[in-house]
């Protein structure tokens, strides 16, 4: 009897009825009946197989996705709706001397033009409010918006942003995160330092650990910037009604945070702002904060009509958050037997022009940087710095994939140097039940070794080695 059948037997539910019947009535409109596998409050003992595990379930919303009936933002429109486009700076670091929108405003079909100085509070961000909605005085990266237009068609809006003339005075720029840490480097947000958040973890005595080590490995690992490329671009519709309330349909995963941020930028009470989070066509961390929404709201207020804004694929790359590139320096001391005795990690995260979710990413990258290994002596320090590049923020894992690439690459190097099987060196060092993490947290339900052994048996790792 399989594990899940045993659980079902115990719960007196037959397998056939526990699963959703595939032959359910298919009459359209097709909304899946609410009768999937039974969900009850069940507090499992440690390692007990609960009956949800191993069962098949279908997504409730999958049916409408397949029928093409799911309403994403761009599938919706409202009477009199206008289309917005944002003019992008195209220069990484510059002072804005002047913005001339008169030619754009003269185009028939252009209903509203907005610049940064018209935004009540022109800054936002989930932890540091350092990002302007539209740059008014200075441009911090090439994808920054400097003006926005709402017009009766997308083409007219596109033509209008081409007619907006912005005069720039170029400023020095910094693109390398390690160089940006120097005292004399160009300050992205002067006069403040480019290092805008730090974290450090210390455990044991690394100097003693290195002194006791038979081998020391020192390596630098770097990762690149990665865009989420959710298939649905960032999109929103804003409608400022005659009563002075604004409704915003947005592809945002965190509507409450968005509501607070929008209230701040528009300088109006949250009670007058309604956010409708629509079905998100892929988030992956890239749709966790506001982007163009305050600009669309103000365009709607000016034009007196609903305004839709959909980013182009190009804007997705230049003007929305990305994954942090990290420069990772690892120094690891090991014994002849392959036991890790000390590890020192230094991380420099490229934060791009704005903070976004960098503080969260910094913390997680730093905590996880020593890896899932029992190491008595650890120092991990992490810095996140401003550069004149597209801002980096949340993306699946919040910094964990980058450091995993670094410590696992180094584990392979160590195994090769010591002539060890890469699996054995991991089994020797991996967390076990009751291990304590670098931050001192005692860990439970730890199955790293079991997982490694099961996985290596499944894909016949030992055979592959011979």
């Amino acid at each position: 009897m399989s594990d899940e059948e045993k659980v079902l037997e115990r719960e007196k539910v037959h397998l056939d009825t526990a699963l959703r019947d595939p032959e359910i009535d298919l009459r359209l409109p097709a909304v899946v009946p609410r009768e999937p596998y039974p969900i009850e409050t069940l507090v499992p003992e440690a390692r007990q197989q609960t009956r949800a595990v191993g069962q098949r379930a279908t997504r409730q919303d999958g049916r409408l996705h397949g029928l093409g009936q799911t309403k994403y933002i761009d599938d919706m429109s409202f009477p009199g709706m206008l289309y917005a486009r944002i003019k992008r700076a195209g220069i990484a670091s510059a002072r804005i001397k002047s913005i001339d929108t008169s030619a754009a405003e003269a185009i028939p079909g252009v209903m509203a033009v907005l610049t940064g100085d018209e935004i009540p509070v022109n800054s936002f961000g989930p932890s540091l409010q350092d990002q302007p909605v539209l740059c008014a005085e200075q441009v911090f990266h090439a994808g920054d918006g400097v003006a926005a237009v709402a017009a009766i068609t997308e083409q007219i809006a596109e033509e209008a942003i081409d007619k907006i003339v912005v005069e720039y005075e170029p400023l020095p720029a910094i693109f390398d995160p390690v160089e940006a840490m120097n005292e004399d480097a160009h300050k992205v947000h002067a006069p403040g330092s480019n290092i805008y958040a730090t974290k450090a973890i210390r455990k044991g005595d690394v100097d003693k650990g290195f002194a006791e080590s038979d081998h020391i490995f020192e390596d630098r690992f770097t990762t690149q910037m990665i865009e989420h490329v959710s298939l649905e671009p960032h999109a929103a519709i804003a409608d400022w009604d005659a009563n002075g309330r604004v409704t915003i349909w947005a592809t945002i995963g965190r509507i409450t945070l968005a509501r607070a941020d929008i209230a701040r930028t528009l300088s109006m009470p949250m009670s007058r702002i309604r956010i409708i989070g629509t079905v998100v066509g892929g988030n992956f961390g890239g749709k966790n904060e506001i982007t163009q929404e305050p600009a669309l709201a103000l365009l709607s207020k000016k034009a007196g009509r609903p305004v839709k804004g959909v980013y182009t694929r190009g804007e997705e790359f230049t003007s929305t958050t990305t994954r942090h590139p990290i420069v990772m320096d690892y120094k690891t001391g090991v014994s002849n037997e392959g036991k890790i005795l000390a590890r020192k990690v230094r991380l420099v995260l490229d934060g791009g022009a704005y903070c976004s979710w960098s503080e969260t990413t910094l913390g997680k990258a730093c905590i996880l940087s020593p890896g899932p290994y029992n190491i008595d002596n650890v120092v991990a320090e992490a810095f996140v710095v401003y550069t004149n590049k597209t801002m980096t923020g949340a993306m699946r894992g919040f910094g964990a994939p980058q450091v995993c690439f670094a410590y696992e690459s180094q584990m392979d190097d160590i195994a090769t140097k010591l002539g060890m099987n890469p699996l054995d060196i991991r089994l020797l060092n991996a967390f076990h039940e009751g291990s304590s993490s670098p931050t001192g947290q005692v860990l439970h339900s730890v199955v790293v070794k079991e997982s490694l052994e099961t996985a290596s048996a499944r894909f016949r790792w030992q055979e592959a080695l011979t």
Partner: protein
Amino acid sequence: MSDITLNINGETRTASVPPETTLLKLLRDYLNLAGAKLGCDVGDCGACTVIVDGQAVNSCLMLAGQADGRDVITIEGLATRDNFHPIQQAFENNGALQCGFCGPGVILAAKALLDENDDPDVATIRDALAGNLCRCTGYTKMIEAVQVAAGELRAEAPQQLSHAKSEAAS
């Protein structure tokens, strides 16, 4: 303005659009068929896939005028009043749709394949779906779903199948 008359999902539809209008824009903005999605607007992602005269095409790269007088199938044309298309059913049952944004394009690319080849191997399915990107990383389940749907379609139409096979043999 160009006057376009085309057959969409078995119905004759007409529209008068500016000459630069793409087929995707015609479907979405003029005919209210929003199932085909705009993902990249340059023919990379396949979210806008529709079937024109039996071929899967990126409707963002085809002008509405080029579709004049032709047969177009969109995702809205697959299910009937009472039944899903077997591909749609298989995608649902196999959990092949996550955020769903790529779904209509993938399903239509799969339909164009299965209309030509009722028993494709995995390599053929991968090839047919190569123009459709999914960032939720759901390709495995999609390929399984296409295989299940192919089986369903063969079981549904044994007559046509043997006919097609004998035709292919001769």
